[in-house]
């Protein structure tokens, strides 16, 4: 089964032992492979060389404020959930130099940051993460101003998505947000991993012409209906096994009508305003710039870095900050995510990945907060 011509939409079977070859086709095409691996007991996204770098045979146990890695009984490559990192760190680097500045006769001159952006191939992107990219596309690519850093990375990136299979229910709720567990769009290739006894293979669906070319060079054969059916059942089982639910009906109006709801005080009493939720969120895009000059005052630079709306400084205006209370800052984050985002970008800012729940050190659960407000809303949200 050498090179063959595949069409967009084609479904093929890739044996688990051939997965390495898919990676090699990608790196042979010049892609820099990025994917999940275990590092110091953490599930992280980083450079990937071979299949063995993946968290083979591991799964994740997630609850509010809890994250555990646990061995699986099988050797699944993608049997884990999400870690704290997301692909945004590659598409939109959290620390990024923008330009240098140099004094010269009669003033100064700015030297824009020159950079070579590697073409990334992301291996193991979940449906919710694809949705998060689509959300960030609206922010960085579809407004009046296009962010060149994001665009350079995003346009080149090759995406190998993975549909989620059944796991122990955790903190995620993609079904509520309509973003998963099956990847519907936004990928070059999407895998469904099937482990049945000794059988271990992938159903691969081709999403783009680019994906078809790559897959055509990896060993595969056409998938049989029974195989497609087996893969679909796994995704359906994942959908039926969500750990969290978020009712999104009329959610914007619900939050707009409840800015003074007592629940904000209640959650603020628990919130540490640490900003973990915003840092792990795959859609949060807020950032700040930092200007510096060297001691001689001859050269300087501007850097951009990820910022979170939980700091008092975030809303600082001469004389003081707008959002001084923890209540107002938590409210800003949550209402931005679930309500104002809809007015700003025409979609929710939440994709239901559950990271903010898992990585909150005090276990604040976005679905629980939304439910608490809905259940005792001053004015019920309208459909």
């Amino acid at each position, binding site marked *: 089964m050498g090179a063959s011509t595949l069409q967009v939409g084609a479904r093929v079977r890739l044996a688990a032992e051939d997965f390495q070859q898919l990676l090699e086709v990608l790196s042979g095409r010049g892609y820099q492979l990025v994917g999940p691996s275990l590092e110091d007991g953490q599930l992280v996204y980083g450079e990937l060389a071979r299949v063995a770098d993946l968290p083979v045979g591991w799964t994740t146990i997630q609850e509010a404020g809890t994250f555990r890695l646990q061995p699986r009984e099988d050797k699944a490559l993608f049997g884990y959930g999400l870690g704290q990192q997301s692909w945004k760190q590659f598409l939109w680097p959290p620390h990024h130099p923008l330009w240098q500045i140099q004094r010269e006769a009669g003033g100064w001159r700015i030297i824009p940051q020159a950079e070579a952006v590697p073409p990334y191939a992301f291996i193991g992107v979940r449906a919710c993460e694809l949705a998060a990219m689509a959300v960030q596309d609206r922010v*960085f690519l579809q*407004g009046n*101003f296009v962010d060149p850093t994001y665009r350079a990375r995003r346009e080149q990136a090759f995406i190998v998505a993975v549909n989620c299979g059944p796991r122990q229910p955790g903190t995620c709720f993609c079904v509520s947000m309509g973003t998963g567990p099956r990847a519907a769009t936004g990928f070059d290739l999407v895998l469904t991993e099937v482990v049945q006894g000794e059988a271990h293979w992938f159903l691969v669906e081709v999403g783009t012409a680019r994906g078809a070319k790559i897959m055509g060079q990896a060993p595969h054969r056409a998938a049989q209906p029974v195989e497609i059916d087996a893969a679909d059942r796994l995704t359906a089982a994942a959908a039926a096994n969500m750990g969290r639910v978020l009712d999104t009906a009329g959610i914007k109006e619900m939050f707009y009508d409840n800015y003074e709801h007592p629940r904000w005080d209640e959650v603020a009493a628990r919130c540490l305003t640490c900003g973990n939720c915003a840092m792990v969120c795959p859609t949060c895009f807020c950032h700040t710039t930092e200007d510096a000059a060297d001691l001689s005052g001859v050269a300087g630079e501007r850097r951009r870095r990820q910022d979170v709306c939980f700091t008092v400084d975030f809303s600082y205006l001469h004389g003081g900050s707008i959002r001084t209370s923890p209540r107002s800052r938590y409210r800003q984050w949550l209402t931005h995510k679930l309500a104002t985002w809809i007015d700003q970008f025409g979609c929710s800012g939440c994709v239901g990945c559950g990271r903010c729940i898992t990585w909150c050190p005090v276990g604040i659960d976005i679905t629980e907060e939304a439910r608490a407000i809905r259940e005792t809303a001053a004015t019920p949200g309208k459909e």
Partner: protein
Amino acid sequence: MTSNLPDPMIPTPFVVHRVKRETSDTYTLDLKGPEAAANFAFAPGQFNMLYAFGAGEAPISISGDPARPETLVHTVRDVGNVTRAICRLKKGERLGVRGPFGAPWPVAQLAGQDVLIIAGGLGLAPLRPALYHLLNHREEYGNVEVIYGARTPKDLLYPKELERWRGRFDLRVHITVDASEGDWRGSVGVVTKIIARARFDPPSTAALVCGPGVMMRFTVQELMSRGLKPEQIYVSMERNMKCGVGLCGHCQWGPFFVCKDGPVFRYDRVRDWFERREV
């Protein structure tokens, strides 16, 4: 309006042509652009991100005449590291400019109406280009009234120009201060009180309001009690800003990005958010 400058994220060096001290902590800078940006077109109410070498950037509204784009004018109050560095610039030194950004005062749409320009404190700076426009096209507008309040007479911006405007027959200027000592012969009292002196025909009037939040809230209430509808009132908002192009998230105000949806908003569109605290 799109940026005049090549890359909206990279400051273009402008040369300080003149620095004029307005009050104890406020300065007006006249800037000249490089050849490529010699004519800096902007609309009244828009702002630029001004960059002082090594210190950083601050959003500052443009306070010059839109009909004279060869000189870029900014009035800056020294309230922090960046604005202090800007205020200390001398003639011949360079200042980085990104912009112009933001939604302007809709002056062209207001033709045929009476226009109230209501400013508090430094709020006269972003309104001055609007007033220049009205005066440049004076015959297109009805009655034009300037209502300006400041803390003390020493805090009034552009005092000589205020005198010149006061001397015009086609413009009425009402000035008040919160407290005065010495030889101030003008009005003392809050700015909302002198709105009563303005002459305007409520159904065909627009009010352009810029000042501190408290001042704007009470001004809007006063205007509405005098028969203006929310859609006849425009306010200019201020927020922390880092990028100026709606990406950094700092200037969020409920569903709005003040940098790109504002800073000028029609009041009826932001009314729900205007009264909310810590948003």
